């Protein structure tokens, strides 16, 4: 019984992690993290502005479906 509850809790925790990761990907938070890693810079107003400059063209070329 205890083991079952533990397994369920782990499953829920895993699902929640994936859900948050999906939202972070959709909302470009993961892309920003990768940008920081790639350029070895700390999060700041300037680095976010640089990320947006780099990201804007790629994002603008992505079609959104009907």
């Amino acid at each position, binding site marked *: 019984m205890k083991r079952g509850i533990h397994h369920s809790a782990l499953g829920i925790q895993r699902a929640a992690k*994936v859900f948050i*990761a*999906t*939202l*972070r*990907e*959709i*909302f*470009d*938070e*993961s*892309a*920003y993290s*990768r*940008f920081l*890693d*790639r350029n070895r810079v700390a*999060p*700041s*107003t300037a*680095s*976010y*502005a640089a*990320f*947006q400059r*780099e990201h*804007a*063209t*790629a*994002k*603008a*070329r*992505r*079609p*959104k*479906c*009907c």
Partner: protein
Amino acid sequence: MPKPLRLAIWVALAMTGALAVGIIALHRGEQINAIWLVVAAVCTYALGYRFYSKFIATKLLVLDAHRATPAERLENGRDFVPTNKWVVFGHHFAAIAGPGPLVGPVLAAQFGYLPGTLWILAGAVLGGCVQDFVVLLFSVRRDGKSLTEMAREEIGRVGGVVAYIAILSIIVILLGVCALIVVNALKASPWGTFTIAMTIPIALLMGVYLRRIRPGKVLETSVLGFALVLLAIVGGQWVSQSPHVGPWFTFSATTLALLVIIYGFAASALPVWLLLAPRDYLSTFVKLGTIGLLALGIVALRPTLHMPPLTRFIDGTGPIFAGKIFPFAFITIACGAISGFHALISSGTTPKLIRREVETRMVGYGAMICESMVAIMATIAACVLQPGTYFAINSPAGIVGAAPQTAAAAITNWGFPITASEMHSLAQAVGEQTLFNRTGGAPAFAVGMAHIFASSLGGQALTAIWYHFAIMFEALFILTVLDAGTRVGRFMIQDALGHVWKPLGRTSWYPSILATSGLIVAAWGYFLWQGVKDPLGGINSLWPLFGIANQLLATVALCVATTIVVKMGRARYAFVTLLPLVWLVTVTFTASWAKIFSPNPRIGFLSHAQQLTASGANPQLIFNDRLDAAVTAALIFMVALVLIESAWLWWRVLAGRKEVQVREAPFVPTRFAEEQA
């Protein structure tokens, strides 16, 4: 799980699905519960995914768990990033889900709930999901190449050029129709207009917050923006009731059209970070939340469908759009069943994120199942309305008359009783001046959604809030499609013009930005203006045009897919892509022929132009009809060229007269091979 138990579960699921489809197809005379549509859909999708997609994966595509994807081989942390399959699934679904699966099924409900539902289920499982899956896989095997590039390399030069023109045409027509839906939803609606207008300062605030106060915290900013939008919806009620402020936000269709055109130009020409990027995030947040909420609402509340399975308009005399079930139901519902536009997403960002080849099945086939489920929910939202109400909202003034009494009498005469006072009460309940002649599908969907939610969440007192929440949700993400599409169209034109004169291709050169933005906005703005000025409401002519363009793009995508299948030496399984291809060719070519040459002026562009000429109508309206006929003819001519070029290639390959060249990236073993699929 033991095999006999698994088998028993699948047999039970198949029988439940058959029972549900039987009930929705054969039930006559009594209203049925919406849950039967949900059960039929869930069982069909489950069977389609488990058996058909697995067949495609193992027999046709032969997915290779040991082969590295471009996300792994070309990983750069920017475009190519190996990503968790559920994350890619969510990302892909967010990109393919747009207004199409909400609007198309609402319009097609004029035939009753049955034709649309059956087409959504069959079309998705056998067509749309297949297209998205195979195009995604073929793009993954070609380093994430786009549909246009694959068409050029696999079919030939004509295929590439036609794919490019078809994509640009569909973008132009799509944006014109989308803008028309927004205009029709917001005209003479101070509440709706105020709410949407407020999303501009809210997005500006989000932009500043995101850039200066909490850099990179997009989710947090979106939650904040969403809370402000909810406040704007509540504030909209006060605005609509205020004799002083209300008129500032009350616009005619033509004024709104001009405002939308100006917005589109600004969206394309100005830097994006301050206004458009935050609006895009806000729109995605609202879209995903509302779709989830609607799914929960339908399952929890199980509303009754008041629309009959088939209406008298299956004879082709429908007030919303003219034409019989075949072919018009099949081009009216595109995105929920099969949409060529999805092929652009499946050969765009998604293939660059796929970590393992075997995951293309879940992402490509699976995400389209979710999109199709959204279309089923839209069908339910439209069909929970009393048919009289549904037709009163969606019928144009040119068909039923502009005066409420005249319109109510016409609709009652069709056998769908409604009175002007009932419609007046409904309009008051949702905070609108009138709900007559609100063509375009969005207001009917919003009334249906408000009807579902208000029956439990907050009761009738919140009907108006729910209605305006639904209008805000639709208008917000349609406008996002509009600004994103305008920019994509601008880039496409700049890419092409760059071959003529290099500076025109520079995306940072302002004269080029202004000129190409002007071109793309003028193109879709023309269709919008045409729709606004059309006495039949615009949807009658423009939505079929959009449906034809979208399905023709799917035809090109399936031509590319079939060509690759033939070149791979798997022609005996080519029926998987050929079946939907043949169906789409039949539907789109029949619909195009009817839209150009039908002697019925409500269907044929040319006969309508002739009728207008005889009655001495405005020459502009006559020109519009001829233009629509020319656009339709040009589209089918180009797609016919791709078909002929493809079929010629298949014949030569199968007859051994042409050396086969499959342009896949070379095999490289993956480091993720040991992971579970």
